[in-house]
Every structure is written in C-alpha cells, then in structure tokens.
C-alpha cells in the first residue's frame, strides 16, 4: 500500500503542477471563442467571430502592429549589437573586460520599474519626444544583456582553429566572419533573437514609462482590463502562444532530424 502511494506521488505532483501552469492558458484560449459582448467574463456561447474579425475591436490590431514593429526593430538592433559585444568579450583581451562582463548583468538584475522610471526621466531631461522611438531604445537596452549572455556561450564553444583554417584557405577577415563564424554562431544568435522578441513583445513596465501616447499590445490589454479584457485580446494572445509552440516544435523536430542523420554513419 505504502509502496503504490510512493510510486504515485511523483506523477500526481507533476500532473497538478501542469494543471496549475496550464489553467490560465487554457482559460485564455477557451474565452477567445466566447461570443462575448463588452466584457469577456461570462461564457455566452461558442463562436469563431472573434478569430475571423479580430481587427473589428478598435485599437487591438493597431496595438498589436506597434508591438510587432517595436519587437522586430529592437530585436534586430539588440541582436546585432549584442553579438558583436559577445564576440569581443570572448575573443579579445582588453582593459575592463571583467568589469564589462559584470556590468552586463546589471540591467537583468535591476527592477524594471527602476529602469523604466530612470530612462523616462533621462528622456524628459533631454527633451526627447516619447513614442515608438523611445520604446525601441528602451527595449534594445534591456534585450542587449540577454543577447550577450546567450551568444557568449556559443562563441566560447566555437573552436578558434576553425577561423584560422578559414584564413589559411584564403578567406580575408570579412569572409571568415560571414562564411565560418556567423553560420556557426547562428543557432545562438537565433535563440537570442527569439528571446529578445519575446521580451520586447510582452514588456509592459518599461514600455509604460516611455511610451507617451503610443499603444502597444500589453498596454492595450492593461488599459482594457479596467473594463474587462475583450475577447480579441484573447485571440491575439492565443495566436502568439500557438506561434511560439510551433517554433519550439519545429526546432525540436529539426534537431532530431539532424541527430538521426549524424548517427547514420556509413
């Protein structure tokens, strides 16, 4: 008796943990099909209308579009800058290298309200008009650290002798970077970019301080929450979630395919 209970403890615990984790997502997903009116709190019947006419609700799609734009631009900027910093930190020896390594963790450790408020007062002092531009600057700032940390691990595992082999085979420094270094760092860079985009897309606190009157998706949901979140927000939330799951699945399948191919020796 005791034995079977002990055997059950772990699966039971795992099941409870998963239910706990998934309930909000399932709720969000389910209520994206709710035939709701102004609020989306009570189940009123099943409909695909919110999915097919997601832009009908005023402001939802504009906010979503802004968030995608901000996400893409700050991801590209943060990934490019972060990759260069990561390579420099691993490959070159220079003064204050260790201090820079340490400083990079600061934005990750500092509370977002403090960063957001600090940046907002900087923009105010400099007289910068708040808007999409200031949001992008803020997002690049906090994404940068995550990119550097992610790409650095990849650079550290890259054998410098591969780059030397490239030089030896008549590639100049630029060609060595694009034909050898970059393709080999790509998995790390892609992971960093996905992480940046995810961080940027759902950031609320720092964005709220530096957005002025610009709406982003998280801000829209926050504002709407006062009156009850519209089902259209659930639709977009669910869609983003599904997209993320698909990316993860695709990566897993691709990785498995590669692993099998490598196992197939001779």
């Amino acid at each position, binding site marked *: 008796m005791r034995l079977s209970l002990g055997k059950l403890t772990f699966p039971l615990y795992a099941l409870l943990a998963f239910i706990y984790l998934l309930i909000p997502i399932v709720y969000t997903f389910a209520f994206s099909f709710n035939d709701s009116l102004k609020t989306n709190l009570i189940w009123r019947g099943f409909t695909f209308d919110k999915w097919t006419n997601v832009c009908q609700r005023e402001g939802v799609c504009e906010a979503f579009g802004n968030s995608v734009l901000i996400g893409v631009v700050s991801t590209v900027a943060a990934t490019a800058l972060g990759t260069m910093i990561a390579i420099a930190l691993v490959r070159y020896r220079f003064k204050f290298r260790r201090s820079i390594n340490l400083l990079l963790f600061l934005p990750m450790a500092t509370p977002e309200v403090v960063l957001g408020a600090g940046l907002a007062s900087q923009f105010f002092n400099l007289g910068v008009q708040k808007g999409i531009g200031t949001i992008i600057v803020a997002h690049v700032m906090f994404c940068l650290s995550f990119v550097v940390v992610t790409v650095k691990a990849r650079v550290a595992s890259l*054998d410098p*002798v*591969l780059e*030397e*082999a*490239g*030089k*030896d*085979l*008549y*590639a*100049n420094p630029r*060609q060595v970077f694009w*034909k*050898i270094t970059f*393709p*080999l760092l790509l998995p790390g860079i892609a992971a960093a970019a996905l992480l940046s985009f995810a961080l940027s897309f759902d950031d609320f606190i720092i964005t709220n301080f530096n957005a002025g009157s610009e709406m982003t998706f998280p801000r829209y949901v926050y504002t709407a929450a006062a009156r009850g979140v519209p089902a259209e927000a659930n639709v977009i939330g669910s869609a983003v979630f599904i997209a993320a799951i698909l990316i993860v699945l695709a990566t897993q399948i691709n990785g498995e395919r590669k692993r099998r*191919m*490598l196992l*197939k*020796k001779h």
Partner: protein
Amino acid sequence: MAKEFIARGADLELKKIRKEFPGFTAIEELDLHVPAGEFFALLGPSGCGKTTTLRLVAGLETPTSGQIFIGGEDETETKPHERPVNTVFQSYALFPHMNVLENVAFGLRQRKIDEPLVKAKEALNLVQLAHLADRKPQQLSGGQQQRVALARALVNRPSLLLLDEPLGALDLKLRREMQIELKAIQMEVGLTFLHVTHDQEEAMDMADTVAVMNKGRIEQMGAPEALYDRPKTVFVSKFLGQSNLLVGEVESTSANSVSIEVAGNKISVPKTRAEKHTGKIAIGFRPEKATFTNKKPAASSSTNIIGPGEIIDIRFTGVSNQYLIEVPELGNITVFAQNIGKSPVTELGEKVWISWSVEHSFGLSDLPNTGEAA
C-alpha cells in the same frame, strides 16, 4: 589538369626568427632552409617551439624579429590568406556546417578558381574518399577526417604544405597506413611538405630531412639515417632512438681516434665521429649495436669493452629482447638483442661483458646532466 600536378613546391627560408610571448620565449633564434619539393620534418618534444614555427610560416603568428621567405618572396608581413601556404591542422579543423565536398572546395571558391566542385572531387579521389563527398565531417571517422583535411589543403596546390601533427589522433595501425599514403601523395604531387611531429619514428619514416628542435632552437638537422647514426648532442642521442652515454676525460689520442677511460675500461671513438677531441667528453653507442658475452672478449683496438656487469632486467618486445645491465661505477647500460636464435645469456643476475665496435661510437658536443649519465 596534369599541368597543375607538375607545379612544384617552393622553398622556405627562415632567417633569424625570434618569437616571444608574454612571459616566455618560444623561439630563441631560428635559421632554417627547406629546399623545394622536400619532405621536411621538425621533430621535438611538446613545448619546443615546433608548432609556433609552423604557425609563423602559416602567418597565424607574427615573429618578434626575423624574416620568412617562401619561394624567395618575403612573406614576413603578409596575412595568412595572402600566403601560398596551406595547413593540415592537428584537430583537422573541418568546417562542421559544410559537407565534405564544400570543405574541400572552400579554398578554391575563395580564390575564384573555375569549377571548384570538379577539382574538389578530384582531390577527394586522390585520398580515396570521393564516395563520402556528401557527408558532414562529424559523420566521418578520425582517419577519414584527416584525409579530408589533407585533400582540402592539397587541392589548392600550395607552394608549401604545413602538417601539424596530423597523425597524432590516429591509432597505431591507421597511423602507419597514413604515413605510407602521405609519403606517396607527396611524391606524386611534388609539393614541399613541412611536417611537425613529436613522433621520432614518424619523422624518420617519412622525411627526407629531419630537424630536431629543443627549447626553441634546432639542435641538429640532417637525413634520418645520418642523424640516427651520428647524433651530435645529448638531447638528439636520447630523443631520436635510445643511447648509452659514457663520460670521461680524454686520456689518449691516436692518429684517428680519441679514447676516454671509464671505470678502468678504455673507450674509443673515431676522430671523425667525435665533436670534441679534448677535455671531458661523452661517448655514446646505440643499444642494438652492442652485444654481451659471459666471458671477457679478447681486447682489440677496433672494439670497446666494458664489464663485468649484472643483468638486472630483461624485457621481451617481440622482435628483440631489451637487457638492462648494471655496470659498477658506470650505471645502467641497455643492450637490444634480436630474437633470431637463442641468446648466449638470458638469465637475470648473470655476469656479462658488453662490447661494440669503435666505429659505432659517437662523441657528443655536450655532457649529460649528472644523474642521467647512463
């Protein structure tokens, strides 16, 4: 295509090369000339500066002072991608994101050579790996990767091919096979090979000329047979094969030999085979050149005799037995005897006299450190 194979290698000349790294000097002062078309081996223990020398020639390091000439051109200041040199790296350094064929074609593509894939395929044929052209490097065995690395370098017809211990990671059997293959390819393509290794057998087996390197300097250079027959320093005599060394003051000199006396035994060396003719010198001989008997052989001016000593260890190594003989006041002497018949004495503890021809002795220019006199 045949024309490209005729293209000969260039010669390499290093003039007064010195290389310092923060905290230590890797190369003191190096002068080296490798004639065109030669298989040249740089042999030395790890840390002797041989890999640094190779990297200097490839352009991956810059010398602190000195000059590098390849085919008469001063290449000291040029970048690695501008040098007519290719390297087979110790770890092979194949690009993991490209298949075998693309790896081999990389150098050709960089130089915008016509039909890179056709030529790459030909190079793979040369190393008998054309059937694996579509594989990724990670799917190949160590020996196959090594041959791809060789093809990737050879396909460019470099004036000079650098080999950085390329056989080090292979097992013994595969290593012997690759040695034969590598030598055959070098003869076929006629390029200059500069081969760095710490494996003396590998160096002697393949190279036309061997340079023994120690502590950032070249100790001795020559054909493998000459180096083995007549080492000039303690280091070379010990690193290239094994040696027994005897140290003593020169007691007498005749028209064509010098003699020392050690523990009551007169040991002679021909003058032409001795670096020093006066003072305290070290005379050596190879373990396989000596024999031992349990009766003292008749004294002769053409034979060196020491003994009696006691056999304290016998090792069976297949083709030969290795005997360790302790001679009072002299230390331990090693003698190899081929297993071609029953040896006269094979028991531990036997008293024996060791003898070898004066012609097989060699006189060194330096003395062993005390404690390793045997």
